[in-house]
């Protein structure tokens, strides 16, 4: 039956079930990533955003919510160009973050 509207699937995150270890491990390597203020400068300049929706801000957020498939999708087009690093007002070494995320990703359990 068509009611003229539909319900989007729940986006609630059950923090007991998701794996947040990737974020923690990245933060252990470079605690600087914890200082992100979500300003979005990195997203605005990103070379890859047009293709995979890449945004360092969103990657950081998705990792903290355990939405790992989104992380993988976004990272899959990053060109490591370094624009995000240059514009980040908090001086976060985003290229290092991206490389380490790509390296450590597989050891994380799948999405909840």
């Amino acid at each position, binding site marked *: 039956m068509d009611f003229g509207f539909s319900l989007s699937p729940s986006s609630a995150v059950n923090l007991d079930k998701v794996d947040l270890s990737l974020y923690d491990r990245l933060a252990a390597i*470079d605690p*600087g990533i914890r200082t992100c203020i979500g300003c979005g400068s990195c997203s605005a*300049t990103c*070379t890859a955003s*047009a*293709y*995979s929706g890449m945004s360092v801000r969103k990657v950081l957020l998705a990792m903290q919510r355990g939405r790992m498939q989104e992380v*993988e999708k976004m*990272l*899959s*087009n*990053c*060109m*490591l*160009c*370094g*624009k995000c*690093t*240059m*514009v980040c007002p908090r*001086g*976060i*070494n985003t*290229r*290092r973050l991206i*490389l380490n*995320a*790509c*390296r*450590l*990703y*597989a*050891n994380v359990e799948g999405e909840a």
Partner: protein
Amino acid sequence: MIDRFANSGFHPFVLPFLVGMIFVLTYCFFGMVRIIWELPGKDRRRFFLSLVTPRTAWKNVKDIFLNCLIHVKLWKRNPVLGYMHSSIAFGWFMIILLGHIEVMLFLPERIRFFYYPIFFNFFVAEGESTIQGSVLMFLMDFFLLIILSGIAMAIVKRFASLWFGMRRTTRLSFLDSVGLYSLWAIFPLRLLSESFTAHISGGSFLTVPMNRMFVWFFGNDMNYLPTWWAYSIALGIFMIVLPFTRYMHIPAEMLLIPLRNAGIRIIHPRKGFARVQVRSCPGCGVCIDACPMSVKKENLKDCTVYLNRQIRRGNEKRIAEISDKCLLCGKCTEVCQVGVPGPEMRLAQRSLRKYSINPHYSNIQVDPFIDAIPTGTRVLYFAGCMTHLTPGIKKSVLSLLDKAGASYSVMDPDGGLCCGRPMMMAGRDEQAREMIRLNTEIIRASGCNVLLLSCPICYRIFKEKYKLGNIRIVHHSVYFNELIHAGRLKVNREEALKLVYHDPCELGRGCGIYDEPREAVSAAGTLVEARQNHAESICCGGSLGSITLSYEKREGITRNSVDNLMAGSPDAIVTACPLCLSTFNKYADVPVKDLATVLDEKC
């Protein structure tokens, strides 16, 4: 000339030398076979071919002579150190050579005993009885004196390296010290033993007077055997420890030079050519002072000398740290007398890394880019990622092109794909190659015949890795300089304006472009030079080469680089790299401008 040991030609004191000699020769032989074995088949064939090609063979001989024996590069950098090293290396070589000549002239049947040339004065009597004999004896004493002067300098240097203008030297390991002290002992002991036997064997201006003195002092010649033993033992110890010390660089460099002349490059990060490279580094420490990172004490152990050392030791954790921190600025290679390619070595280490996410770009369509470029485009300008972040440069470039009346199009007006160099700097060649493929498709389809770039980072990869056929790849500094010379750009020179030009690493050391930007700067004002310039310029610190250095940790590097540029108290700093521009802008007290902006203001 009398052979004192005519029947046997042997005395037991030669044994320590003999054992050491056989050991080191065997070691080096198998080491060499292993390294050649580790080369990819193509490189191996290329190497063998180069050995029999007269031109490269001659170049090998010349380079080995000039670098290993005379140390020309060191002479140019520091004549005192140059003298010290070449006096020992060349002097020792001459003594060995003269020893062989003596044996060949006087006792040719003994040449197969390879200790005869070394201990000639022990085995013969009345060596200077002929004219040739006394000339050779004179030369022997002469070169021994030269070596001894070098050794004396080495001893002083060890204890006062500051006098020699080196701020930092590397610390020696235990075996290195054993090697060093035995090397120091060899030549004074040789002088003593030859002096003790000079009344039997003959001698010259050094050994004969010393012999007189000894005879007068001791009244007999009972001392000569112990000193010949000691001389032989010192030689033996030196050669036995050699493979485990930094002195291994002597044989390693003799293999490195022919391999390099054959055009072989590092492929495997540890084996083959890379193994010779790390073995050829004597740990002189010149790269420590040169490295821009060493303004901070915490980075001192991340210079190339330590990379080589950790690779020799197989310390994986440190190898990874050192490889990831480097700015890839290339300065260490520039000052290194062996020419160890610090950045390439590090890239090879980075390429070892395994990733679980491997970016790919097959989903990216190139057609929209191609369609946006008007047909008939001659000059295609690719701004690149970094220029998009410094829009002032792009504006100036376009304005200059307009003023020169050039017909051009912009390949990435609203941002394009990355050139691939930053990815390559992370050691991810496969990803970089995919970007190269996409960009190549766009550029070739555009039908342009000039590709203009304003970022040296892009420029370098376009030059080195892109295959664009007849399309000319040109950096804006070169292009605008040509337009000025051709009279298409009229620049009003302001005599009083003092401008210093910063050589961006990727443009200068990376691509060898030094003069054109300077000419262009001179067209706008008075060019002054930085303290260290051209190939020795200091990286701004902003480099994408470093993976682990965060921006706050780079402040010291940038300030040091600015300080270097301010030597001639310029009114503005001019650079030709968007990344240098934004990096310097953070800390410089004078305006920092791109070359294009400077020219545009004066046009």
